[in-house]
C-alpha cells in the first residue's frame, strides 16, 4: 500500500476564493493510499516547503502530490523540496487546481468537486510513479551566431572574449547590418560608423571567431550542447584567401549602374562590388544576375585586372558542417517597404502615401543614407527627384505600426526617437529648413530619450503636429500633405519638398523559414518568441537557442546590445559545464515487443528516433528496432500514442498510469 501525501495550496486567495480547499484536503485523506493530507496558504513559500519536508519524514511518505498551480510554475520547487527530504524528485507531482480550475470557474461547488477529481486522479498517477535519474549529455563548447549586425557582433565578441569558439554566419557579403547604414545614433548623436567599424574589425581579427559571410543556414540537427549545423556558403566568385581587397576589380567593372542596396538604391554600384567601403571582410562579390560575364559570357574584365587571380567564375556554393553546443539567433529586422505591393506584405494599404510612386516620399533608412557622410550625397540632404535641397520636410510616424486593420498592431519602438533625430540632422544640415512631424504619441522611454525629443522641439525647432496624415499628392513640384492637428482640432496642409515615412519594423525576410530549421517558435509577425516574456527574455523555448536583437521584436541599439550580451552570458553559462543534466521524462523502447515498423520515427518532432540493429552473439542481424536518443527526446509522448505494438513508453506517463487516472474518474 502506498503512502502518499497530498498538499492542497490556497495560493493566497487565487485558489481558495473559488475552491473549498479544506474540503479537497479532507476528501483526499479518504482516498486509498493517501497517508497524509493538509491545506496551506502558500505551499511554495518557505514554511510551505518545510511543511512538505516535515510531513515526508513524519509520515514516512513514498509519494507526494501538491495540488496547486501549473507544474510549469512550481514543479521544480516542490521536487527540490521533496528531494532534500530524501524522496526521489520524480515521485513528487503536481495537480493543477489553479489554471485548470479556480481561475476558469466561478461556481464554488462545481470547482471544488473538480479540484477533488484532479487530486483523485493525480494520486493514482503518483502511486504508479517510478524513481527516475536525470540524463546527462556532453556539451560542445562552440557557439553559432546567426546574423552579423550589431546584435550578432556583440554576442560573438562576448562569447569569443570568454575564450569560447564562435561561428558567425552572415547572409550579406559584409557584416555590419543596419547599424552600418545609419548616420548618427540617438540619443547622443555619435556617428554610427565610428562606433561600429572597430567592432567589425574586432570580429574579423578575433582568433576565436570564424566568420562566414555571404552564407546561410541550410540545416540544423541535434539538441542542446550537441547541434550539427549545415551552412551554405554562397559562391562569391572571388576566392577570399587570394583577394587582397585592392579594389581594382570594382573600379574597372564596366557595369556600374546597378542600384546600391546598401544606399537604399539611391547610389550606384558595379556588378562586382563591396557593399560599402568599411565592409568586413573587404572582399568583393560578383552579383551574378547583373554581371555581363554570367549573363552573356562576354566580359571577364575583373579576372583580367585581378593581380592575385582571385576571381573564380566557376566557384560553386559549398556546404560546411559545424558542431556547436549553442545557437544565438540575431537575424535583425527590415523596414516595411513603401514601394511594396500590399499583397506581399502584412501591411494592407498606404496607397494614400503613394506606394513609392512619389519619388520624394522616402523611408527612414533612406533618410539615414542621405544624412550619412559616406552616403550617396556625401551627407547632403538632397531630394531624390531633382537633387535639390528640401526647404520643408515632413516626417510621418507610425506608418504601418499601431494600425491593427491596415498594418500591424505593435509599436515599432524606434521611430519616435529616430524621427526626432532626423529633424535634428536636417536642421544641422539645412539651417533655415523647417521640419514637421506628424505623430500619434511621442514614445520615448529610455535613458535621456525624452530629453532628446524635447530638444528636437524646443531647441532644434521641429514643429510636432499631433495627428495623422490622410493623403499625400504632388502639386507643382511639391508634395501636398493633408493632415490634422488633433490638439487644435483643425485640418492642416503643408507643401513639403520631401516626406519621410517612419515605416514599420518587421521581421527579416525568411525569418519563419529559419525558425522552422531551428525548431523555435515565432509569432504571427515572424518575430521569434522568447521562453518567457519577463523571466526568460533571451531564451527560446527550445533549449540551447538564444535570441538577440530585433529578430525578437523591434529594438533600438542599446536594447539590442544589452540583449546580445545577455544571450552571450547564457551561452557562456551553458559552456561552463562539461555535462548537461536533462529531465529524464523521455521515451523508452521495449525492444522485445518492438516490431521495427518505425511509425514513431515518422511522427517524432525532435528527430530523436533512430533505427537500431539487434544482432545475436554471432553478429547475425536479428531484427531492427526503434531507439530513442535520450538527449534529443523532448518527452512529448507522440511516439507512445502512435506505436501500434505499445512498445514505446514515456517515463512518468506510462500507459498504466494514464489508464489508472482515467479509471479513477
Amino acid at each position, binding site marked *: 500500500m502506498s503512502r502518499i501525501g497530498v498538499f492542497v495550496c490556497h495560493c493566497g486567495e487565487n485558489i481558495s476564493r473559488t475552491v473549498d480547499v479544506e474540503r479537497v484536503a479532507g476528501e483526499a485523506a479518504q482516498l486509498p493510499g493517501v497517508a497524509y493530507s493538509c491545506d496551506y496558504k502558500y505551499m511554495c513559500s518557505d514554511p510551505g516547503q518545510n511543511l512538505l519536508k516535515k510531513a515526508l519524514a513524519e509520515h514516512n511518505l513514498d509519494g507526494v502530490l501538491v495540488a496547486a498551480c501549473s507544474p510549469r510554475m512550481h514543479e521544480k520547487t516542490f521536487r527540490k523540496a521533496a528531494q532534500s527530504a530524501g524522496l526521489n524528485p520524480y515521485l513528487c507531482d503536481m495537480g493543477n487546481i489553479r489554471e485548470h480550475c479556480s481561475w476558469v470557474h466561478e461556481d464554488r461547488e462545481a470547482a471544488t468537486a473538480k479540484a477533488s477529481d484532479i487530486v483523485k486522479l493525480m494520486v493514482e498517477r503518483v502511486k504508479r510513479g517510478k524513481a527516475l535519474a536525470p540524463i546527462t549529455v556532453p556539451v560542445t563548447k562552440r557557439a553559432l551566431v546567426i546574423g552579423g549586425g550589431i546584435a550578432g557582433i556583440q554576442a560573438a565578441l562576448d562569447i569569443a572574449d570568454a575564450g569560447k569558439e564562435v561561428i558567425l554566419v552572415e547572409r550579406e557579403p559584409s557584416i555590419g547590418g543596419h547599424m552600418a547604414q545609419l548616420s548618427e545614433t540617438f540619443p547622443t548623436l555619435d556617428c554610427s560608423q565610428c562606433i561600429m567599424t572597430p567592432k567589425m574589425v574586432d570580429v574579423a581579427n578575433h582568433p576565436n571567431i570564424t566568420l562566414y559571410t555571404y552564407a546561410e543556414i541550410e540545416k540544423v540537427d541535434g539538441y542542446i550542447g550537441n547541434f550539427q549545423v549545415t551552412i551554405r556558403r554562397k559562391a562569391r566568385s572571388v576566392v577570399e584567401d587570394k583577394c587582397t581587397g585592392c579594389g581594382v576589380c570594382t573600379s574597372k567593372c564596366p557595369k556600374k549602374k546597378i542600384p546600391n542596396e546598401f544606399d537604399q538604391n539611391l547610389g550606384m554600384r558595379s556588378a562586382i562590388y563591396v557593399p560599402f567601403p568599411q565592409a568586413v571582410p573587404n572582399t568583393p562579390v560578383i552579383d551574378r544576375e547583373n554581371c555581363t560575364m554570367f549573363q552573356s559570357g562576354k566580359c571577364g574584365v575583373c579576372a583580367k585586372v585581378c593581380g592575385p587571380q582571385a576571381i573564380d567564375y566557376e566557384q560553386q556554393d559549398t556546404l560546411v558542417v559545424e558542431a556547436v553546443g549553442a545557437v544565438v539567433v540575431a537575424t535583425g529586422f527590415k523596414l516595411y517597404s513603401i514601394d511594396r505591393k500590399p499583397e506581399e506584405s502584412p501591411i494592407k494599404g498606404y496607397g494614400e502615401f503613394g506606394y513609392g510612386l512619389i519619388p520624394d516620399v522616402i523611408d527612414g533608412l533612406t533618410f539615414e543614407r542621405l544624412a550619412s557622410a559616406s552616403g550617396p550625397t556625401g551627407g547632403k540632404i538632397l531630394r531624390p527627384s531633382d537633387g535639390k535641397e528640401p526647404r*520643408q520636410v515632413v516626417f510621418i510616424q507610425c506608418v504601418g505600426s499601431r494600425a491593427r486593420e491596415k498594418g500591424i498592431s505593435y509599436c515599432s519602438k524606434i521611430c519616435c526617437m529616430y524621427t526626432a533625430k532626423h529633424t535634428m540632422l536636417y536642421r544641422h544640415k539645412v539651417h533655415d529648413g523647417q521640419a*514637421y512631424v506628424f505623430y500619434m504619441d511621442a514614445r520615448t522611454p529610455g535613458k535621456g530619450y525624452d530629453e532628446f525629443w*524635447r530638444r528636437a522641439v524646443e531647441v532644434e525647432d521641429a514643429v510636432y503636429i499631433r495627428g495623422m496624415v490622410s493623403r499625400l499628392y504632388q502639386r507643382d513640384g511639391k508634395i501636398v500633405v493633408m493632415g490634422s492637428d488633433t*490638439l*487644435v*482640432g483643425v485640418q*492642416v*496642409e503643408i507643401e513639403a519638398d520631401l516626406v519621410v515615412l517612419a515605416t514599420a519594423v518587421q521581421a527579416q525576410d525568411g525569418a519563419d523559414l529559419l525558425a522552422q530549421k531551428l525548431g523555435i517558435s515565432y509569432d504571427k509577425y515572424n518575430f521569434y518568441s522568447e521562453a518567457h516574456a519577463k523571466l526568460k527574455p533571451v531564451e527560446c523555448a527550445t533549449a540551447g537557442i538564444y535570441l538577440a536583437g530585433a529578430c525578437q521584436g523591434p529594438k533600438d541599439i542599446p536594447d539590442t546590445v544589452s540583449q546580445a550580451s545577455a544571450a552571450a552570458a547564457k551561452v557562456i553559462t551553458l559552456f561552463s559545464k562539461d555535462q548537461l543534466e536533462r529531465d529524464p521524462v523521455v521515451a523508452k523502447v521495449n525492444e522485445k515487443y518492438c516490431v521495427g515498423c518505425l511509425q514513431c520515427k515518422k511522427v517524432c518532432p525532435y528527430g530523436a528516433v533512430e533505427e537500431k540493429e539487434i544482432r545475436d552473439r554471432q553478429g547475425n542481424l536479428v531484427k531492427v528496432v526503434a531507439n530513442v536518443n535520450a538527449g534529443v527526446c523532448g518527452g512529448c509522448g507522440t511516439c507512445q500514442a502512435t506505436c501500434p505494438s505499445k512498445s514505446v513508453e514515456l517515463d512518468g506517463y506510462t500507459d498504466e498510469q494514464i489508464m489508472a487516472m482515467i479509471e479513477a474518474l
Partner: protein
Amino acid sequence: MKNKLMHLSNETINLDFVNKVEKLSGSSVRRCMQCGKCSAGCPMATFMEHPPNRIVRLLQLGQGKRILAGRSIWYCASCETCTTRCPNTVNLAAIMDALRKLSWDADGPSKESYVQLANRLFIENIRTYGRQYEMRLGAVFNLRSGRLLKDFLLGPKLISRGKLKVFHQKNRNLDEIEAIFSRIEEMRKKGEAL
C-alpha cells in the same frame, strides 16, 4: 476661423508674434507638451472656444491671428492656477497677459467687448481719479455697454450700506499719476518698450 484649414509654412507661421509673446511673458511656448493640465484646472475653460492648452498650441504653430480672432483670452480670470500647476513651467497666465496686450495694442481685434470695456474704464478711472471710483465704474459701464438695468436692484442696496460712494475725492498727486501714463506712452512711441 476656428475650424478653417491651417496652411503651415515658413510664411504662415508667424514667429514674430510668438517672439513678442515670449518676450512680454518671459515664458517659452515650446516647452509645452500639450498635457492639458492648464485646461483641466481652468475655471473659465467652459467659457472659451480655445481652452488654454490650445492657445499655447496655436502659438507653437505661429497662429496668433487665430487666437486673436477669438475671445478666449478675455475670459481668463488671471487666477494663476495654470501657471502654478504647469509641469513644465509654462507661465500661461503671463502669456494670456501678453496676448491681451497685443490684442489691445492692435485695438482689440479679439472681441469681448464687455471685458474690454470694463478694463478700459478701470484704467481710465486710475488716470482720472487716482483711486477707483466704483460707483462711476459701474454706472459708466452700464451706460456704455447698453445694459442699463444690469445690477439695477443692487445699486441702492450697496449705497444704503455705504458700499458705493456717490461722491469721490480725486488724489492730490494726480499729476504724478498722469506722468506715469504719459511717460509710458512716450517710451512706446520711441520703441523703448513693448
